[in-house]
């Protein structure tokens, strides 16, 4: 028992150091970015992308349902904050739990089949959830969405922090991001993560050793769902508004693009991907021609095709490859 505690303490400190470094890098980035809103948005969008990477990069499942789970979190938190005036942390927890419940159901049906069928089923579920949000006007506001979400003081009993200033909110989001990031890092290094990766390589072999792939996939899916929900709740706070488009499968597609751009097989890929995506969106929208009719997506789509064709590891993988070539010389 004592030894185990010792070990877990050791592991905790082993993660603490890189976490501090990460924070030290990410805090100044806030001041570099052209728009202050953008900084929090990059971190928030990176959170569901992390979940997507856990599923595609480490488990081999292409999830087109990320957007709907994200939206479930956002709507739950949004409704609680706007109409019932609950505590911010409580709203976040409720959003995460709600997404968790939905992902338990969704996962149960989707993980039975891999590959194409998984992708199509998650897509169908995604549209189902979007459809419910769209139709249930009295509860979700339908096409109008949820207005009046207030990002105010976060009261922690002994002291309270005002979340309204963008920098305060950025730090608030950063704490969640780092927690999730290092939780996933540990998860992937854990025996559980190894089993996931083993199943990605050969499900047959994993089954032969005695692991039940369905259970593992299901758990991975639920973990992903919880993380997506967290991202959603933070997004509701960030925008102070929730719209039905969040649940549409195009939002899922955006997370797919982010993950592929950044690097699908490594966790930092999520941050790189969401950073590049949001930065590019902001940059391209500065041109009047491209901001009209959302044509910046055209440029993004073209970049995406090139990445899928020639750079499967995304930007992270590309840099890694370039570095290796450089070192060999």
């Amino acid at each position, binding site marked *: 028992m004592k030894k185990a505690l010792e070990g877990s303490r050791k592991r905790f400190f082993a993660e603490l150091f890189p976490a501090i470094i990460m924070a030290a890098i990410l805090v100044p980035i806030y001041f570099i970015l052209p728009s202050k809103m953008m900084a929090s948005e990059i971190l928030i969008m990176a959170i569901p992308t992390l979940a997507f990477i856990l599923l595609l990069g480490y488990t081999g499942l292409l999830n087109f349902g990320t957007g709907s789970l994200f939206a479930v979190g956002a709507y739950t938190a949004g409704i609680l904050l706007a109409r019932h005036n609950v505590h911010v942390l409580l709203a976040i927890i409720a959003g995460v739990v709600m997404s968790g419940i939905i992902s338990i159901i969704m996962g149960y*049906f989707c993980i039975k089949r891999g590959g194409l069928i998984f992708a199509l089923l998650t897509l*169908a579920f995604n549209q189902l959830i979007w459809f419910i949000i769209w139709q249930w006007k009295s509860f979700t506001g339908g096409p109008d969405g949820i207005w009046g979400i207030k990002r105010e003081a976060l009261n922690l009993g002994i002291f309270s922090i005002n979340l309204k200033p963008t920098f305060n909110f950025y730090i608030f989001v950063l704490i969640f991001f780092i927690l999730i990031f290092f939780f996933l890092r540990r998860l992937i290094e854990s025996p559980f993560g190894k089993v996931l990766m083993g199943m990605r390589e050969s499900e047959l072999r994993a089954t032969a050793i005695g692991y039940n792939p369905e259970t593992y996939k299901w758990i991975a899916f639920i973990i992903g769902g919880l993380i997506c929900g967290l991202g959603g709740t933070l997004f509701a706070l960030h925008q102070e508004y929730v719209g039905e488009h969040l649940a549409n499968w195009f939002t899922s597609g955006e997370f*797919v693009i982010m993950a*592929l751009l950044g690097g699908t097989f490594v966790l930092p890929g999520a941050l790189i991907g969401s950073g590049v995506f949001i930065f590019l969106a902001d940059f391209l929208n500065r041109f009047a021609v491209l901001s009209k*009719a959302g044509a910046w997506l055209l440029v993004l*789509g073209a970049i995406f095709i090139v990445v899928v064709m020639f750079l499967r590891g995304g930007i992270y993988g590309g840099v890694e490859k370039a570095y290796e070539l450089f070192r060999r010389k």
Partner: protein
Amino acid sequence: MINIDAILPQVFNGIQFGVLMALLATGLSLIFGMLGIINFAHGSLYMLGAYFVWTCVQMLDLPGNFWLGLVLTLPLMAVVGLVLERFLLHRMYGQPVVYQILITFGLLLVIQQGVALIYGTTPLPLGMPPSFEGEISLGLFRYPVYRLFTMVLGLAIISAVWFFIERSALGAIIRASAEDPETAKTLGINTRTVYTWTFALGSALAGLGGGLHAPLIGGLQHPIGTEILLICFIVVVIGGMGSIRGALLGGIILGVVRGLAGVFWAPASDFVMFAAMGIILMVRPQGLLGREATR
């Protein structure tokens, strides 16, 4: 109490919609069954077909401009398909399905947003072709002529494609190239060319479906392709991947279920489609008449 007079036209509308979706799903299914490619850009090809017909009607001041546009979509979309296959998609053969989905998803973005850039985002209305505006009596009820026409034409084309693939000599070559490329090659079949033309055929069907559907949509907008894509997937999943008869059966089932749901509670019509797909995938994952992808 809902009377039969209200239900029958809805069921008919459902079948008509289902046949049109089956026409699109036939193309999707053909590409999947023969090439093993799952094409997320199929809906975008449908959209291109619809916009092309719209452009023809606007640009050409001829009496039969709609029909000319409709006929011309076939070769035009075939060429689009040829180009896509030659330059992009042929690299995806035998790749993990995930990457096929991703690359065709990228293609969908490019085509859809390209159309939005050229045509703008406001809905573009396209009226019924002249002399097809009225209704015709079908005994129990009156039915729009154009809808009836799309149903008949759709059925004829699906049957023709089925006959071509399953019964003709060229169809045998396509099936052989899909089932056993190595043997087909040793028999002197250029499988590369066969795949390219099969993809072109699938694209042409998508374009034709778009052109036929265009007057019924109300107003053309660039996201129509993605909406239709989802319905097409449902049809293909219900009917069975890679089966033409399955696509037709799936389309009709989906159309009728959707039409009936619309009679009782309109918002449920989309819901039941997804529910039907979910149930089929749980009970019979290969679809009602499905066969496994051969490549």
